């Protein structure tokens, strides 16, 4: 990074129209069709997650032995009481998918919080103090990066024991280096700037310098990474649950549902198709928004 984009606000004409960086970014975001598509998809999932008990037609765990393996409504033998069909326990697929969004959003929030918190902390400390501390922390991050992330997550869960909680921890830990690298880079860049030195001269302590002065100026790449992080967390959690290492049955989690559907692959294509489609859509939503945010927040990266 050589020059930092000089604010255009200096010119008088621009000053009138300028809204502040946040509003400007939001305006740019609104024009970005990809980002808007992402926001719409994510909103749908959020609504599904928040209002599951009112939207879902059935209890996601309720079994009905008379209604096993019912096909979706448009297929022969399907009915409106089970719009997407049922699984081998006669559980309503639609309701399970709706409740599943709850778990996926939760996984995203918890896993991303873990990696965001520890990654930011590690990156900020490394970048701010430099020298030996920097070396040690970043070496540690390199080691975590030396494993393909899904493998590391699998292995961590294998040793901690399979459960949704441990899967969230594993996924969070695996992504820490991504955040640490971003924050360290930004901190290094910002630290050299005059305003930081000015604040220090005014007597600001290290903690204040890092959290009040420096970090707010590193937010853009961090927000982008956080959004993309939701996408990979949801995908990885679904993969772990699919392998039986995350959410355990009968939890209505998409990956776990897919694992159950796999056994029914010859008899019930719907039990495989719909949970996977949900994973794809949710991941896509966050990836779209992340891409859009990157364009909107960081004009330097725009084409």
């Amino acid at each position, binding site marked *: 990074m050589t020059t930092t984009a000089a604010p255009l606000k200096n010119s008088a004409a621009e000053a009138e129209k300028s809204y502040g960086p946040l509003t400007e970014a939001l305006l740019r975001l609104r024009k970005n069709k990809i980002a808007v598509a992402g926001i719409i998809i994510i909103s749908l999932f959020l609504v599904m997650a928040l209002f599951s008990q009112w939207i879902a037609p059935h209890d996601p765990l309720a079994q009905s032995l008379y209604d096993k393996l019912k096909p979706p409504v448009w297929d022969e033998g399907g009915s409106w009481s089970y719009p997407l069909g049922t699984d081998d326990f006669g559980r309503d697929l639609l309701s399970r998918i709706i409740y599943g969004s709850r778990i996926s959003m939760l996984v995203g929030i918890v896993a991303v919080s873990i990696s965001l918190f520890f990654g930011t902390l590690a990156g900020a400390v490394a970048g701010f103090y430099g020298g030996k501390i920097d070396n040690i922390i970043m070496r540690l991050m390199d080691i975590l990066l030396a494993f393909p992330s899904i*493998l590391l997550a699998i292995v961590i869960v294998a*040793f901690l024991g399979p459960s949704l909680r441990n899967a969230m921890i594993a996924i969070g830990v695996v992504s820490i280096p991504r955040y640490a690298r971003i924050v360290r880079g930004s901190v290094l860049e910002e630290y050299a700037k005059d305003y930081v030195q000015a604040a220090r001269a005014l007597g600001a302590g290290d903690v204040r310098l890092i959290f009040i002065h420096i970090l707010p100026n590193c937010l853009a790449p961090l927000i982008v990474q956080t959004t993309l992080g939701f996408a990979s967390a949801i*995908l990885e959690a679904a993969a772990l649950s699919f392998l039986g290492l995350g959410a355990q049955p009968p939890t209505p989690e998409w990956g776990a549902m897919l694992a159950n559907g*796999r056994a029914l692959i010859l008899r019930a294509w719907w039990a495989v198709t719909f949970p*996977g489609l949900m994973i794809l859509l949710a991941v*896509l939503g966050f990836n779209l928004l992340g891409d859009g945010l990157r364009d909107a927040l960081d004009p330097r990266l725009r084409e």
Partner: protein
Amino acid sequence: MSKFILHRFLSLIPTLLGISILVFFMIHMIPGDPAEMMLGERASEQSLKELREDLGLDKPLYVQYGLFMARLFRGDLGRAYKTNEKITTEIAERFPATIELSIAAIIIATIFGMAAGIISATKQYSIFDYTSMVFSLIGVSMPIFWLGLVLMIIFSLNLGWLPLSGRLSYHINLETVTRIYLLDSILSQNWPAFKDALWHLIMPAFTLSTIPMAIIARITRSSMLEVLRQDYIRTAKAKGLGPVVVYLKHGLKNALIPVITVIGLQFGILMGGAILTETIFAWPGIGKWILDAVYARDFNAVQGGTMLVATTFVLINMLVDILYAWVNPRIKVS
């Protein structure tokens, strides 16, 4: 250049050491007694004690790590509990399957990804460009374990075009030398086996190639767009050169550097990502083997397999770095 390679080689040492420490400590992350976790709650006190001694769990930590490293240097990863076979032997048997799958996947991803990226860049904002970009956005978000199942439903169960899973049909005999079946069947000129192995390979390889293909398409497109904006491209066009020469010789050649890097990195990731694909298609590779060890609570095997995959991953990344420095001499040792 040789200085760079040497430097890059030396930087491997702390990373590999770190990996070994992390892998070593994994067994201590197990809540409670690892021996009991492996043998189950009903195991006798005697067998528990034996296993603890066998794993070296009764010794102080630093001694344990020393023993672990000493064994590692001798190329001894211990034995798999289920089969009592040497872990190195088991891995050596399965690694070629993963290599075959990963190479096939990266070839598919490179061919289709680069082609899509080049056409998109030369016809920016065309219908093809939009379609291929939408597909690549979907591609990077793809849960490949689901895609694999859907492909199975379509191409094996409904259409019956491709075999459902495995590497080779039961009735096919193939003498294995390299254990890379396509290579083996060519070497022994066993064409029915070649066709059978290829048919088995198509679906898993395509499934595994989805994400890298999408990433390669995106990076090729953006890298090409950047190059095509340069003055020398305009000059080349003005000279009257045909589009093929302009786009491929003058354009692609200069756009290749980031593409090559991404292909290399993705290949490394594939070796790890193959776990899911191998599991779905019952592909007897290293990923499925590690997962089976996880299910069997054979922690020794998990450690060995993880160590190997991580080392391979690090080595591939190093080769990518060196390749990168080679195609781009501006890079210096940092």
